[in-house]
């Protein structure tokens, strides 16, 4: 269904075909050299490896859950590599590729899905907010942050922009629509980047919208564009244009990256209950990594050694992910009370000290032979 829609609708921006042919788009010229494309290839391969390792680790009981990005690597790497250092990204919970580009170590992501942290990184340091699980909430945070940028006077050529990630399902949520409106009315420097992976858990796109998602933007008074979400170059070009629009004071854009969730919703999910294998095959042919490899190969821009080297690097990254995950220490029980409040709070202090006494009572009881 989504397939047909894509074919019927000429507005899908594409720069690199599934066959590896580079094309040009009048509105989105992309000035990129071979080295940069090779770097993107590396990103794509490595985040896919991080992802598949995480899936295995979950199967082995090392993680409570994992939300795989399989199939969405290009949308994430393309958009995230369009960000400048000062820009700020507000992810949902599947943006491992974006995290990668923002310098978040995989172990930080794993820590969250292992239940060791709720996201251990510093959002300011990385320009990458914590994962947000309550669908749609982060779109408003992104918009507010962008309104802060406006008040800082940080709009202009060297301006700062914000990108907010969310899925096709999230476009139904009130918060997402309120964010569209706040951004529009305030002309805030924010890009709404929707990865339309055709599914919200078991619900197909037609349960969320009757028209292509990118068109939602026009109803709020700002541009929307649909890009081939499996085309890392198109995602890069379109995101860069949208971010530049935002940073220079031209307001928000909704980018709909048309892609596909190749895996289960999360490791808890069983997609065979609700979707056809045929869909998968169709999308496999549009794999985001394969087309970059084809392009590099067909144009002699990378040799076998390069691909081997990347694969070896992926193996090392995989190894590292496994080790780091397994060696992650559990938090101390008293961390429950950490950072609930910034200012001193007598109530929390009291609960903490009572609980410390309670825990200590076991130790002494243990020493004495126990209950």
């Amino acid at each position, binding site marked *: 269904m989504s397939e047909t829609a894509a074919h019927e609708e000429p507005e899908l921006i594409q720069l690199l075909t599934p066959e590896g042919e580079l094309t040009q788009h009048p509105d989105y010229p992309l000035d990129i050299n071979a080295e940069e494309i090779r770097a993107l290839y590396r990103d794509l391969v490595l985040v896919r490896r991080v992802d598949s390792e995480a899936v295995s680790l979950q199967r082995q009981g090392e993680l409570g859950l994992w939300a795989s990005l399989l199939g969405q690597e290009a949308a994430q790497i393309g958009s995230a590599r369009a960000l400048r250092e000062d820009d700020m990204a507000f992810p949902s919970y599947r943006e491992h590729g974006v995290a990668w580009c923002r310098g978040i170590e995989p172990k930080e992501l794993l820590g*969250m899905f292992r239940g*060791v942290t709720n996201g251990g990184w510093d959002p300011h340091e990385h320009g990458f907010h914590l994962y947000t699980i309550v669908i749609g909430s982060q779109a408003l945070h992104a918009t507010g942050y962008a309104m802060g940028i406006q008040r800082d006077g940080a709009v202009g050529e060297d301006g700062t922009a914000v990108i907010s990630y969310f899925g096709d399902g999230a476009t139904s949520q009130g918060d997402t629509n309120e964010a569209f409106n706040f951004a529009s009315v305030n002309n805030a420097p924010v890009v709404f980047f929707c990865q339309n992976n055709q599914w919200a858990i078991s619900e197909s796109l037609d349960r969320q919208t009757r028209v292509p998602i990118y068109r939602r933007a026009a109803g709020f008074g700002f541009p929307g564009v649909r890009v081939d979400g499996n085309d890392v170059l198109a995602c890069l070009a379109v995101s860069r244009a949208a971010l530049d629009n935002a940073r220079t004071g031209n307001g928000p854009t909704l980018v709909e990256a048309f892609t596909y969730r190749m895996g289960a919703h999360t490791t808890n999910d069983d997609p065979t209950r609700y979707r056809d294998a045929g869909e998968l095959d169709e999308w496999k042919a549009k794999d985001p990594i394969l087309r970059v490899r084809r392009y590099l190969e067909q144009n002699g821009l990378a040799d076998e050694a390069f691909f081997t080297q990347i694969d070896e690097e992926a193996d090392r990254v995989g190894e590292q992910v496994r080790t780091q995950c397994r060696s992650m220490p559990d938090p101390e029980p008293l961390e429950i009370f950490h950072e609930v409040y910034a200012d001193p709070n007598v109530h929390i202090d009291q609960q903490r000290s009572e609980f410390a006494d309670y825990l200590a009572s076991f130790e002494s009881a243990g020493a004495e032979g126990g209950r």
Partner: protein
Amino acid sequence: MGTNLTIGKAINAGLRAAMEHDPKVLMMGEDVGKLGGVFRVTDGLYKDFGADRVIDTPLAESGIVGTAIGMAMRGYRPVVEIQFDGFFFPAANQTFTQLAKMRRRSAGKLSMPVVMRIPYGGGIGAVEHHSESPEAYFQHTAGLRVVTVANPEDAYWMIQQAVRSDDPVIFLEPKRRYYEKAEVDTGASLAEVTPMGAARIARPGTDCTLLAYGPMIKTALQAAEADTDHSIEVIDVRSLSPVDYPTITESVKRTGRLVVAHEATLTGGPGAEIAARVTEECFYHLESPVIRVAAFDTPYPQSRLEEHYLPDLDRVLDGVDRAFAY
């Protein structure tokens, strides 16, 4: 007609019975259709009752509850699934300002036979927002009925009672107990079984009353078993609004002590209300203050801390000890 069912499957069977009994009963929510819900509680209903009666909604909780209200006005009896406790909050406005008040503000001209099913509570190793215990928010909201189940028998019958009620019912499902199994007498009749609002003495005892509900009942029973020094009476309160105080105060007047255990955070949790009320009604009978054993007053922590955060067997026993320390 006994069947061995898990809590999850018992709710499923109860929903099926409700749909068979009344064509106005509908299921609504995210992934309740083909998938049968992320916990499979609506499994098979889509296949057998079709997309008009088992509605996969857009991803918008306010929309789900808001349209359920409209459906109820049109004569339907929607059973809404909120996928996880933590995702109730976008629906707070529709639930608290609309659903709960509609009958009162229409002076009885409109009924709101809407059931909101919410898998709640922690202990499943989940990421954030999947382990909350929001029952106190509901209990504090006039106009809602709030019930929860702890065993397959109640699961099967209470969901049907909830669907039959002309009031909005918050139906809290103890998600970490979904797979607990027991015999269910599906042959009884709705009219005969214990009413939804009644508390149940889950285990008789003489020295101390231990009150709990939902996921904590299993822990409470284990605690009663484990404490060989005292005879502990366990009450499954089942309904948090209204609370069946006669059953509770009768028990407390006998035992002289009350411990309340829940996964909701301590401050302003259901234990506060029960403690305040029971103390008022049993002032001269209480040999110790009502002791509350609850989650700490912090956000639900990352899952590797939840065993410390949630009241477990030891914390409940500690609460009982504290009651006997007076």
